[in-house]
Structure formats: structure tokens, C-alpha cells
């Protein structure tokens, strides 16, 4: 087969996947973008083109700006904590001797639970009258959901509790890809354990870390279920993330155009975060630098 024929065959083979992607990803995206330029409220029978007015309204909407801040704060703190906790966990799993498989399986339990189930579990534990934490420490951790400025941290805590094992597993895969010989050679040269970690393990783990950050920050920025179950966005919208605001505007208030605008802003934020991490991932690692 000629090179051209082969290219054509390749294109034909890729076409179904491309068409499916266009159908399920690009289509809805463009439809949402178009909807966000309209004022559409089906129950009021309103549907007209308003240009960028929805985006203009969002720029002055205190609830939207609050939701944006909540989402950014949730993402930054949750992902940072997950990374800080997962790294030692991954190292411990990596160096664990016998029973490693069993330990690894046990660590993954929170990650296996559906988020809604995990969130409901914590909602019961944190229930401020009868929850377990309320019985142990009624005015402290037991009352966290009743405090407007603290309730979001309960959601962050549940996210960290649930997702740290996943991050640890990603890092563990990275650790196992590092050749043992490098560390051994460094030790022969008299490097301390800390030095080996800083100069060999950490730089070589960089791609795995960035990958974990990429996955997690994209996921965390779209957070919905944890908050929906724990607080429904209350008290006073202080725990409401963008996705919950979009859902409420679209489906509860029935304002489709504004809801689409919020969804699209969320999407653009996620794309920006994804591109930032991907470009960091694409940079040449210092270890390979000439």
C-alpha cells in the first residue's frame, strides 16, 4: 500500500472516533455556547438573543464571584493537601515489604466508595445534633457545618479523605518506574537518604506528580456531589461551587441562558488549568537537561 493510501486508511479508521467525539463533546459544547448568548426561561416563555449580556451580569453577580472564589479555594487547598499527604503514603507503600498488596487494597477503600456515599457518611458523622463528632466535640468539629466560614473546609476534608489514596497510587506508579540502580549508585557515592530523595526520587517523580495535579485539579474544580450532599451550598451560599450554581440556575431556577454562561465559564477555567499543567508536563525535565 502506498504511503498516501495508508494515510487515507488511517484517516478512515480514525473517522468513527472523531465523529463520535464531535457528536458527544463538540456538539454539546457549541450548543451551550450558543445558549449562553440567549435569554431563555422556558416557564416564562422567554427566548431571545442577548449577546454577551449573561456574561456581563455574571461579572457583577456577587453569588457568582463567591462561587468562583469557593471553587478556586476548594481546588487549591484540597489538591495541595492531597499531594502533601499522598507522597509519604506512596513512599511507605513503595517500601512496604510483605503484605504490600493487602495494604494497597486497604488504602484504596475510600476511593472505591461512590462520592455520594462517602459524603453521606461524613454528613451523618458531622450532623451537628446527633453526629458522632458532635457527641465528642460539640462546639468544635461537630459544629463545623453550621459555621459559614468553616463549612467549606468540611467539604475539602471529605475530598482529601476520599482522594488521597488515588493520588498516592498515581505517585506509587511513578516511584516504581524509577530504576533502583540510580538510588543504589547514589548511596555508593555516599548520598544520604534525604539527598537521594531530593536529587533522584523527586526530580524523576515530577511527571507523575504533575499528572496527579492535572487529574485532581480538573476534578476538584468541577466539584459537585460532596457539597451537594453535605451542605447544598449553604449556609448562605458560602460553600457553593460553580457547578452547583450552574445546576441551580439551569434546572431549579430554570434560567437556561445564564446557567449555560456559568457552565461555559467553568469549562474555560478547567481548560485553562488543564493547559497550564500540560505545558508544565511538556517542559523538559531538569534531569535531562544537557
Amino acid at each position: 500500500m502506498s504511503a498516501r493510501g495508508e494515510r487515507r486508511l488511517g484517516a478512515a479508521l480514525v473517522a468513527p472516533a472523531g465523529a463520535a467525539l464531535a457528536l458527544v463533546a463538540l456538539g454539546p459544547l457549541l450548543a451551550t455556547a450558543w445558549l449562553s448568548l440567549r435569554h431563555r426561561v422556558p416557564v416564562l416563555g422567554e427566548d431571545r438573543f442577548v449577546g454577551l449580556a449573561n456574561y456581563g451580569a455574571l461579572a457583577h453577580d456577587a453569588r457568582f464571584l463567591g462561587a468562583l472564589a469557593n471553587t478556586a479555594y476548594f481546588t487549591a487547598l484540597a489538591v495541595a493537601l492531597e499531594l502533601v499527604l499522598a507522597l509519604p503514603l506512596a513512599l511507605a507503600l513503595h517500601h512496604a515489604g510483605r503484605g504490600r498488596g493487602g495494604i494497597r487494597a486497604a488504602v484504596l477503600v475510600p476511593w472505591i466508595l461512590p462520592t455520594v456515599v462517602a459524603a453521606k457518611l461524613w454528613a451523618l458523622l458531622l450532623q451537628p445534633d446527633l453526629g458522632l463528632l458532635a457527641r465528642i466535640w460539640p462546639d468544635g468539629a461537630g459544629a463545623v457545618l453550621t459555621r459559614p466560614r468553616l463549612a467549606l473546609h468540611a467539604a475539602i476534608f471529605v475530598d482529601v479523605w476520599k482522594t488521597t489514596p488515588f493520588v498516592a497510587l498515581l505517585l506509587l506508579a511513578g516511584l516504581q518506574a524509577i530504576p533502583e540502580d540510580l538510588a543504589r549508585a547514589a548511596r555508593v557515592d555516599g548520598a544520604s537518604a534525604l539527598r537521594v530523595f531530593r536529587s533522584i526520587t523527586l526530580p524523576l517523580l515530577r511527571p507523575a506528580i504533575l499528572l496527579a495535579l492535572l487529574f485532581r485539579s480538573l476534578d476538584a474544580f468541577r466539584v459537585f456531589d460532596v457539597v451537594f450532599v453535605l451542605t447544598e451550598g449553604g449556609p448562605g451560599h458560602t460553600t457553593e461551587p460553580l457547578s452547583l450554581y450552574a445546576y441551580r440556575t439551569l434546572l431549579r431556577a430554570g434560567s437556561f441562558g445564564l446557567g449555560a454562561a456559568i457552565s461555559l465559564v467553568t469549562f474555560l477555567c478547567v481548560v485553562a488549568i488543564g493547559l497550564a499543567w500540560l505545558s508544565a508536563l511538556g517542559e523538559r525535565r531538569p534531569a535531562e537537561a544537557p
Partner: protein
Amino acid sequence: MLPSLRALAPLLLCAALAAGCRAREDTRSADRLVLRYQPLGPDPAPFRALVAAFERESGVEVEVQALPNAADLAHQLLVTSLGAGGQDVDVFVLDVVWVAELARAGWLADLSDAFPPARVREEFLAGPAGAVVQGGRTFAVPWYVDVGLLYYRKDLVPEPPRTYAALAAAIRAARAEAPGIAGFLWQGRQYEGLSCNFFEALWGHGGAALDGDRLRLDTPAAREALGHLRRLVADGLSPRSVVTAAEEDARRAFQEGRAVFMRNWPYAWPLLQDPASKVRGKVGVAPLPGADGPAPGALGGWQLAVSSRAPAARRAAAIRLVAHLTSPDANAVLAIAYGRNPARHASYEDPRIRAEAPFIAALLPRVEAARARPVTPYYMLAADALQGELSAAVSGLRSPAEALARAQAQADAIAGVER
């Protein structure tokens, strides 16, 4: 050529599926109705028997579909289906606060011929009748009702309080006997239950929230009402946990014997009388207190409506189904088997209900006094913004005045869109 055709296969498949869905909808015959309702209780048998009786009498088959028990979700499902012009449902349930909105949208069939407004007003309780009759036409028929009640501990409170001051005094007195007991439990979580509690406080302060079609939230009475709710928490008459509490949070804590008073719906009564309940036999029910005397409880409950998209052939059968399910006999089944309060005056005199559900029969004065949340097409659109601002005030994030001003601005922006 062949590969590119294959590439189109998923598209063609989707198109075929979509066409298939439409075709199926249109061919549903006139003697098959779809009813969407919220499951009434764990045992479906009495309700099934009620529907089966209709099927026998009319020869029309009824397909019963369940909606989620969360009102907001049920609303969302109905609005997306009706808004898309779907014909997949003929008869469905409506919360009292949805009727105006969906009637205005033109999605509810006019039932005035079968249920003339004058007869609806005569036979049904004033609250639900006022919600289903819009502009002199009947758009839905009341099915069962709910009302906000004050539950109190008979062993700690000799007389139920009629005013807010008496409520506070009773809590202090009860605490002298039972130190550490919580005072008044209610629903302060950011959701529709908080709005019900707020409107009850508003009526208790002599206020109203409607001026024509316009929601009036930024009024002196509303500021007093919201300030009152906030002070309950700030002064310790209610535990801080009420700012996250929904009905079940309050009911469980009250049932554990942890509080003197609770605001809740009638459903809590049989649960509190359960053999395992710690407060069994120690609970009384009274009207909610107000500033100068008892306040009306918020009206909840459900109505049955017919979709305006149901073709004429099915509409007649659908109206007969609504009549069957809202009949005095059906009221009795719902009251006895499911503890639902009848929407008809006369049912409270029904000997079957008086004998087998005396608690329900005794609630007549409460349901007669019950008041509906503002009946306006804009209520559901503004509800979300209102809940958030009420929650902000109750949890101490903003002053009641500031929260209400913000809620008013948002409600006006929603309604003003088309003025």
C-alpha cells in the same frame, strides 16, 4: 466511500433512536394514561388498589411513574419534560407553589368545566383552593395537604405557648427542670423548608409577602421576622444546629428527647409515637406561636393536574382519573393508609378517618388556617435566591435587612425581565 459511510453510522443510529422515541410517544393510545406522582409510603398496595378501581370502572389503563420525593428534583423533572413539549405524561402532581408558574407557562390543562372554581372553593380547603384557581380558572385539583405545626413536650410544658415571648419563657422554664435540653428546633438549612419557616415567622409578625404578582421581601415585618429567626439562634433558644437542619434532622433530635419544641409537618406524629421513640406519649401538637397570638402554618401538599399537551382523546380520561383520585373515598384511603391530610373539608368529618386516623381528623383547624407561600408565577424562579439570603441571615453572615434587600433585588430582576 464505504469507510465514510461507516463513520456516519453512530450519527444514523442516534437519529434512528430519536425517531423511534418520538414514534413511540405518538402511538400511545387514548386508553392508556401516564400518571406521575411521588410515592406515598413504603406499602404501595392501597394506592395500587385505588388506581386499579379506576382502571376497572373506566377501562383505561394507568401507567404509574414515580417522581423523586425531593420536591425540587420533582419540579426539575417536570419542567424539563413539559418545557421540551413532551407528551410522555398526562396527569402529574404539583406542589402548591408550582401551580401559578406552570399555569402561566400554559402547560396545565384548564379543568374549569369538570371542576368549576366555585365548587373547588366550596369543597376544598381555602389554602389549596386559592393555589389551584388562577384568574378564575381551575388548573389543578387539591390532592392532599400539609401544614406547619408546633410539637411540644407535654411533660415539660404545661400549656403550649401562643406567642414568641411565651415560647422563650417556656424554654427557660423547661431548662430549669431539664438542664441542657435544647429549646426550639426548626428548619434553617438552605432549602425550601427554610422559606416555609420564614413565611410562618412573617405571618406571625403580621406581614405578607405579595403585592399583586410582585414578591415583597424587603418590608419592616419581613425584617422583624428574619431578625426573630436569627435571634432564636443567637440567643440560644434554638441550637446552632438548626442552621443546617432539615425536617428529619429536627425530627430525629426531638425524638431522642433533646428539645422542648419543634416546628415540623404532620408526618412526624406517627414516628414520634413509635414504640422505640423516647418521647412517645409525651408530645402535644399546637398552632405555631406568633408575635401576638397563634400564627398560621405554611401550607404544603400536592395537587393533581392534567398536561395541556395531552391530546383531547386522553384528556377526558385524564380528568376522570383526577376526579377519582381526589374523591372523598380516595381522601380516606390516603389519610388512613398513608397519613396524608385530606384536602376536602368534609373528609375531616368522615367516620372512617375519625376512627382510624384521629390525629388527622383533629388537624382540621390547623389546615383551615394554613396559608400558602406567595402564589405568583415567579415564586420558583426566586426561591433559590431567597433560600440563600435567608440562610445567610439565619447563620449570621449578613444582617436580616441586608439579606432581604439582596433577595428583593434578585427577585425583582427575575420578575422584571418581562415588565
